[in-house]
């Protein structure tokens, strides 16, 4: 199967290219980037030196292919969806342009109207653990926000069973979430070793969380994000206040039932050893979402802890997983890397 990537010079685009080059069932036809058009891909993605002779081409040189990944800056796919859709029968979009079912949410969270709301219904929210059957049946899937992915996966089993009164959620995130365009804030002497409360309230990924956790009406979730000394990785710490107290055994049962057969979700709650709860650093480059939990003996609080690599399960890895489901490949194809330790 021939695939191309529109917008492959970003971190997520580069990660996607790395995965696709190693995927048994696909061949990468073209990768586009405007500013680096004509250059070898390894000029931007040094880890791919020798892996391919591909060069970036401008968007306008894109030829038809079997499946087109969209890694364009926010707002661009929205604008050009009709011409882009003529290039391939199947599209997987990594941007936020088609994530929200409700067009009215875009002005609120992304500050502009959605130019093609009719397309919103065609795109399936492309996290297989949430919508596997719908992805199998669709030709259009959208990736999710990385913070939203780890939050939704971590909390879905509890919200689905209507157990949660409210959740107070914090994610600790790495610098690669901000993309590869530099600013004073991302300048190494300022960013190194910082613990930066960049979104104490009101992060735009909340819109997806509200959408995907609304099993029993609007979920009451309070969200915060703090950037720490990390390049890849997100750690979710979600304080869930349950309607009734549970024991840890109950949580094991709930999460096994929800995710026991999932290829990319691991339950991590060890009583001994150094890695007792999910740890993002050992997931770097892998497609895993590790989930753990602890019951607060003194209250109705349960702390859900989850970790992903924001560029993998939070972006490129999930896109490949969605492709595998959509095209009938083995869901694990191209996603076998288990992460490194020590790292």
């Amino acid at each position: 199967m021939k695939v191309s990537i529109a917008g492959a010079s970003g971190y997520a685009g580069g990660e996607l290219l790395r995965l696709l080059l190693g995927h048994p069932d696909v061949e990468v036809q073209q990768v586009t980037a405007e500013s680096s058009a004509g250059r070898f891909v390894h000029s931007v993605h040094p880890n791919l030196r020798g892996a391919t002779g591909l060069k970036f081409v401008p968007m306008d040189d894109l030829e038809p292919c079997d499946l087109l990944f969209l890694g364009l800056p926010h707002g661009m796919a929205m604008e050009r969806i009709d011409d882009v859709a003529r290039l391939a029968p199947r599209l997987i979009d990594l941007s936020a342009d088609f994530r929200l079912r409700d067009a009215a949410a875009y002005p609120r969270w992304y500050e502009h109207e959605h130019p093609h709301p009719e397309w919103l219904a065609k795109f399936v929210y492309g996290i297989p653990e949430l919508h596997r059957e719908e992805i199998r049946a669709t030709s259009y899937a959208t990736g999710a926000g990385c913070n939203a992915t780890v939050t939704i996966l971590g909390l879905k089993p509890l919200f689905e069973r209507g157990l949660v009164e409210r959740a107070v959620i914090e994610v600790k995130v790495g610098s690669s979430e901000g993309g590869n365009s530099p600013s004073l804030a991302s300048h190494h002497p300022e960013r190194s070793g910082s613990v930066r409360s960049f979104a104490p309230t009101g992060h735009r990924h909340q819109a997806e969380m509200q959408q995907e956790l609304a099993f029993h009406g609007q979920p009451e979730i309070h969200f915060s994000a703090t950037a720490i000394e990390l390049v890849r990785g997100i750690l979710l710490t979600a304080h869930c206040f349950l309607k009734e107290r549970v024991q840890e055994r109950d949580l094991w049962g709930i999460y096994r039932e929800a995710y026991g057969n999932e290829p990319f979700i691991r339950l991590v709650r060890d009583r001994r050893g150094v890695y007792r709860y999910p740890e993002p650093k050992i997931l770097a480059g892998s497609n895993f979402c590790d989930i753990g939990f602890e019951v607060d003996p003194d209250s109705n609080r349960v702390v859900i802890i989850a970790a992903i690599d924001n560029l993998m399960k939070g972006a490129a890895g999930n896109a490949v997983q969605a492709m595998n489901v959509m095209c009938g490949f083995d869901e694990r194809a191209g996603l076998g890397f288990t992460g490194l330790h020590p790292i």
Partner: protein
Amino acid sequence: MAKQVECPECGATVELDDDVISGEIVECPDCAVELEVTSVDPLEVELAPEEDEDWGE
């Protein structure tokens, strides 16, 4: 006595030069918001339009 006015954002006392003119932009010492002097007599300030810096992740 240096001219003073209250920051509309955080309530801090903002000191202004004696020769402050209308339209001048001053920064609040406590919350760093930019204030535009909209009138000198009586002395009044308003929040200056905030340009959105690229800041967080």
